[in-house]
C-alpha cells in the first residue's frame, strides 16, 4: 500500500510549479475522456459554421456590399473583411460555450468537481485543467476556421497564420472571466443571460460584420472596451497584412490583461465554491 502511493507523495511535499501543472494535466485528461464521446459532432459543427457564414455572408451578401460601400471597409472585399472578424467571434462562442454549461454541470448537476476535490487536486488545478482543455478546443476551432478561410481565399497575407494564436487569445479573454463567473452561479438562467446580453450583442456590434465607426458615437466606446473588438481588430490587421507593432501590442496586451484578471477571479470563485 505504502509503496504504490509513495510515487504520489514525494512531489506533493514540494508544491512547486511543476506539481501544479502535473495536477492540472490530470484534470485536463478528465475533459479529454469526456470529449472522446462528443468530438465528432463538434468537429462537424465547427467546420460547417464557417463554410455557411463565409458562403452566405462573405460571398453572397458581399456582392451587395461591393456595389455600395466598399470604401468603408478600407478597400478590401467584404469576404476578406468579414473572415477575420468571424474567426475571432467564433473563438468567443467556443470559449463561452465550453465555460458555461459544462462547468456549471460539473459543480452543480454531475458533481464531478466535488469528486475531484476529494483527490489530490485543488480548486486551482481544476480551473487550470479546464482552461487547458478550452485552449485545446480554441486551437481546434481556430485552425479549422483558418483552413476554411484559406480555402475561400479570404486570407492572403502570410501574417494571416498569426490569426491562429490571436484568435485563441481572444477566446481565452472570454473563457477565464466567464468560467470564473459561472462558478458563482446556481442556476443556468444566469448563463442564458451571458448569451442574451453578452455574446449575441458582441457578436453583432463588435466590428465583426461592419466597422465600429458606423455605430453612433455614444456607444462606440462601449465597443472598444469589449475584448471581442480587440480580437476582431487584431485578427483583421493580421489577415489583411495591415498590422503595426503598436496596434498588435495594444490588442494583445488588452486581451492578456482581461485573461489575467479572469484567471485571478477564477481562483477565488473556484475556491469559494469548492472549499466550503
Amino acid at each position: 500500500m505504502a509503496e504504490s502511493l509513495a510515487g504520489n507523495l514525494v512531489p506533493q511535499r514540494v508544491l512547486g510549479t511543476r506539481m501544479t501543472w502535473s495536477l492540472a494535466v490530470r484534470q485536463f485528461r478528465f475533459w479529454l475522456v469526456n470529449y472522446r464521446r462528443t468530438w465528432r459532432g463538434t468537429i462537424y459543427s465547427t467546420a460547417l459554421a464557417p463554410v455557411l457564414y463565409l458562403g452566405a455572408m462573405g460571398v453572397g451578401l458581399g456582392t451587395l456590399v461591393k456595389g455600395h460601400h466598399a470604401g468603408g471597409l478600407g478597400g478590401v472585399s467584404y469576404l476578406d473583411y468579414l473572415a477575420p472578424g468571424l474567426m475571432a467571434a467564433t473563438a468567443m462562442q467556443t470559449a463561452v460555450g465550453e465555460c458555461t454549461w459544462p462547468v456549471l454541470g460539473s459543480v452543480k448537476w454531475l458533481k464531478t468537481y466535488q469528486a475531484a476535490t476529494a483527490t489530490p487536486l485543488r480548486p486551482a488545478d481544476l480551473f487550470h485543467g479546464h482552461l487547458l482543455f478550452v485552449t485545446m478546443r480554441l486551437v481546434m476551432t481556430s485552425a479549422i476556421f483558418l483552413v476554411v478561410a484559406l480555402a475561400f481565399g479570404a486570407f492572403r497575407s502570410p501574417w494571416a497564420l498569426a490569426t491562429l494564436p490571436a484568435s485563441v487569445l481572444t477566446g481565452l479573454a472570454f473563457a477565464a472571466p466567464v468560467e470564473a463567473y459561472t462558478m458563482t452561479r446556481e442556476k443556468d438562467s444566469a448563463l442564458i443571460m451571458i448569451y442574451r446580453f453578452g455574446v449575441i450583442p458582441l457578436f453583432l456590434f463588435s466590428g465583426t460584420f461592419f466597422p465600429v465607426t458606423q455605430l453612433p458615437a455614444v456607444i462606440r466606446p462601449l465597443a472598444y472596451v469589449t475584448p471581442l473588438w480587440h480580437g476582431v481588430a487584431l485578427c483583421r490587421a493580421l489577415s489583411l497584412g495591415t498590422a503595426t507593432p503598436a496596434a498588435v501590442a495594444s490588442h494583445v496586451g488588452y486581451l492578456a490583461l482581461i485573461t489575467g484578471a479572469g484567471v485571478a477571479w477564477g481562483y477565488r470563485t473556484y475556491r469559494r465554491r469548492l472549499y466550503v
Partner: protein
Amino acid sequence: MAAPDTLIRARGLTKRFGELVAVDGIDFELSRGEVFGFLGPNGAGKSSTMRMIGCVSPRSGGELSILGLDPDLHGPAIRARLGVVPQEDTLDVELTVRENLLVYGRYFGLRRDVIRERTARLLDFVQLAERADDQVEPLSGGMKRRLTIARSLISEPEILLLDEPTTGLDPQARHVVWDRLYRLKQQGVTLVLTTHYMDEAEQLCDRLVVMDGGKIAAEGSPRDLIARYSTPEVLELRFDVGSHDQAAEKLAEVPAERIEVLADRILLYAGNGEEALAAARSLGVEPLTSLVRRSTLEDVFLRLTGRRLED
C-alpha cells in the same frame, strides 16, 4: 507530533458558517485500524466534520492533524492518502463503471496498468464486475453506492471516510453495503463514518462519538455507551391515545431507573424488563402492546439529548 498510530487528532475543532456554528470545538482521536463513527441526527455537524477531515473545508478554529499533517498546508498530500465516499453520489453518470475508476485513479496519478489491475479486483469486491462496461446512469442506488466505495479504494487509501454510506438505500441494499464495509474492517482498513442509523453504528463501529448541536455528547464503544447511559433492558409500552398520559402517571411508581414518555410509546429503563412489566401490571396498567428489548444506541441518544435520532 502525534504518535505514529494516531491517524487523526482534533482539538477544539470548530466550523462556522457566518453566525451558525456547525461544529463547536470538538476533540477526538483516531487510531490506525479502527472503525470510528460520528453518530447523530441531521444537522449535528457530522458532515461538516467529515469535510474538514477530507481537506475540502477549511476549519474555523481549533487544531486538526491528519496523518501528522495540517490540512491547511498539506491538503493534496493528505488527500492522496484518503478515500472518500461522499454523502451524495458524485459519480460521472455519463461514463461507464470502468471509466469512472479510470478517471478517478488518474486523479491520484496512478498508471493505467495499475488502475486496470485494481479495477478488476475492486469491481469483484463490490459485486459489479458484470456491469464494468455499462453506463453508470441506469445503475440502482445500491450499485452506485458500491461503485463509489470501489472508486474510493482505487488509491489504496490509509483512511476511508464514509459520509452517511447507506442513507437513501433500501434495507436489502444497505445490508450489502454493510457486508462490504465489514469485510474492509476485517482487512484492517481504517474507517471513519457518519451515520444517523444506530444499527449501522452498532454493527460497524469499534468506537464512536455521539454528536448533537455541533458538540460531542459522549464517546466510547457502542457497548460502553449503552452500559454507561442506559440500562440492560428496556420495556416499551403502547397505549390507547386516550389513556397514554394516565398510564404514564401510574408507571412513575414502577421501580425503573428512568422513564421516557414519547408521543407514541412509553419506555421504562430497567435491569429486568419482565419484572418491570409485572410491576406495571400489578399497578393496574394494561398496555395494548408490550415489548422487552435490549438497550441500543437509540436509547443512549435519547438519554443524552432528550430527542430521538431518526426524526
